[in-house]
């Protein structure tokens, strides 16, 4: 079980309030991702849940128990750190066994759990090595191993993949997801990478300056962002957002349209402009277009290879149903 309820939780460091009171519920078994630009308070929020920071106000309830005054180890949570935070002076086996030893389990129980975790994570060959002798991906696995042996009610991940190279990151992403499918335990995952958030989450929590901008499934956030911030944060490349006559035509202060919702046509397009940079990826082509009269640069994603180069004139048709309309405050108009 791992249902986590935050109610009016706030955090201040001295006079600086980093998290104004916020409320959030994470259901049992959910994969929740806290995402936002750096300094938005997502890590602080995770550390509040973990108990590594004390809350300044509000309550945190895990499985019906108020834990604001409970020390970290007694909250039944396990955390995986960005730097892995392995104990460098202990072997992999001792690292994984450490929380069990602290919980005063018998040696035979410890051995059984460590061996099981090691085989789940393919660490059997490395158990007698020290962390310094392992690669980044292996260290990350040890850190996860140390978390799963405790059989926690929820896992907390603090940007666990940001120290890995791109290829490894995709692999580890899959491993963590498979682990989630297997264990069906609540996971809270902090990242600044919206692609990670979109691919991994059941529930995304978008944060900015300590404030929750929107909570929803990846596709809810993609289809109906609540405001301009979420609209431009979720999705890659970014949504095109512009004001002016085109927006007025749609009875809005500003409007947004995603690059993949603009079609490239041969001629007589609704919009036209000059190709600046064209990125030919084979499967897709990204155009960065000038002189449209809409915004400084308009980004368009075309499927397949479209043979237009720098300086060519391009004709475009936006899909009418896929416009997002925002008012003066940047809030979505429905």
């Amino acid at each position: 079980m791992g249902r986590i309820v935050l109610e009016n939780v706030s955090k201040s460091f001295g006079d600086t309030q980093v998290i104004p009171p916020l409320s959030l519920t994470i259901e049992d078994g959910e994969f929740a991702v806290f995402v936002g630009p750096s300094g938005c308070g997502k890590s602080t929020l995770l550390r509040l849940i973990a108990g590594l920071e004390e809350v300044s106000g509000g309550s945190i309830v895990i499985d019906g128990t108020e834990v604001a005054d409970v020390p970290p180890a007694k909250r039944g949570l396990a955390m995986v750190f960005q730097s892995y935070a392995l104990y460098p002076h202990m072997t992999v086996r001792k690292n994984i066994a450490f929380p069990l030893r602290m919980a005063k389990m018998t040696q035979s129980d410890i051995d059984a759990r460590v061996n099981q975790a090691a085989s789940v994570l393919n660490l059997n060959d490395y158990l007698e090595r020290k962390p310094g002798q392992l690669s980044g991906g292996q260290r990350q696995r040890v850190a996860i191993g140390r978390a799963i042996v405790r059989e926690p009610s929820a896992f907390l991940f603090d940007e666990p993949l940001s120290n890995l190279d791109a290829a490894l990151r995709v692999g580890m992403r899959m491993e963590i997801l498979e682990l989630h499918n297997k264990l069906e335990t609540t996971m809270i995952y902090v990242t600044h990478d919206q692609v990670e958030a979109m691919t991994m989450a059941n529930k995304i929590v978008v944060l900015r300056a300590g404030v929750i901008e929107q909570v929803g499934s990846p596709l809810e956030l993609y289809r109906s962002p609540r405001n301009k911030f979420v609209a431009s944060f979720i999705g890659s490349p970014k949504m095109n957002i512009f004001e002016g006559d085109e927006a007025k035509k749609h009875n809005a202060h500003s409007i947004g349209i995603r690059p993949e919702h603009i079609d490239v046509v041969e001629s007589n397009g609704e919009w036209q402009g000059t190709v600046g940079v064209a990125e030919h990826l084979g499967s897709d082509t990204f155009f960065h277009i000038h002189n449209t009269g809409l915004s400084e640069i308009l980004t368009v994603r075309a499927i397949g290879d479209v043979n237009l180069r720098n300086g060519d004139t391009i004709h475009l048709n936006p899909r009418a149903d896929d416009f997002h309309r925002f008012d003066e405050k940047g809030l979505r108009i429905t």
Partner: protein
Amino acid sequence: MAIVAQHSKFSKIAMPVLAWVVALIFFFPIFYMLLTSFKTDADAVKPEFLFSFTPTLENYTNMTDNYDYWRFASNSVITSVSATIFALVVGVPCAYAMAFDPSRGTKDILMWMLSTKMLPAAAVLYPMIFLTKSIGLFDTHFLVIMVLSLINLPIVIWMLFTYFKDIPKDIIEAGKMDGLNTWGEIKEILIPLAWGGIASTALLTFIFCWNEAYWTVRLTTIDAATLSKLIEGNRAPEGLFFGRLSAVSTAAVGPIVVLGWFCQKQLVQGLTFGAVK
């Protein structure tokens, strides 16, 4: 290119030569002391016997026969070891708190602690003597141990603080998540990880304690007198007996020189606050 090559050629020859010259200058007094300790008091002051003389062990036998060298030596060992242990017992938790749970005042506290080293010892000498005599602590091991550890505590805390600062906070927090309390964090994580730093600190503190003369000479008479006191005591009123004095000094610095020789690496690391790794 040529300039670089020339420069490196120059430094390849000149630097070692310079280093040897400096080392010899530093070593000469010790060498001279060692040499003099094997001369008779009469020979010691005569320049013609500078290098050629008949060596004698008279000074050393005299020292152990007449002065009870071993009592002074054991006092030195007892007070230096105890003071080092006490300074570490206080210093480790203190440095731990400041390194991993700093407050706004931490920097100021560190500076304040260092500033206590700037107080001239002579300023508190008489209060210390009167006070310790009136409460019966004068010339006791306890007093010497307390004084030695307290005067070294600022250095101990500073050094440990610098070493602890190098340990990532994440590892300590992982320990918290795994169920360690504060003592557990120190025992299971901090001490194993900072072992080299703690050892250098201990070694340096031990040497400082062993060499301390100002307080040990003035706050002891017989019972807790250390080797510094023995040397001081040999400045005899009837004149300077260089042979005897050299033997006593050699016997006093001998153990620490040998210890320092074997622990050079740790000492350099300690003295440079871990800058050489």
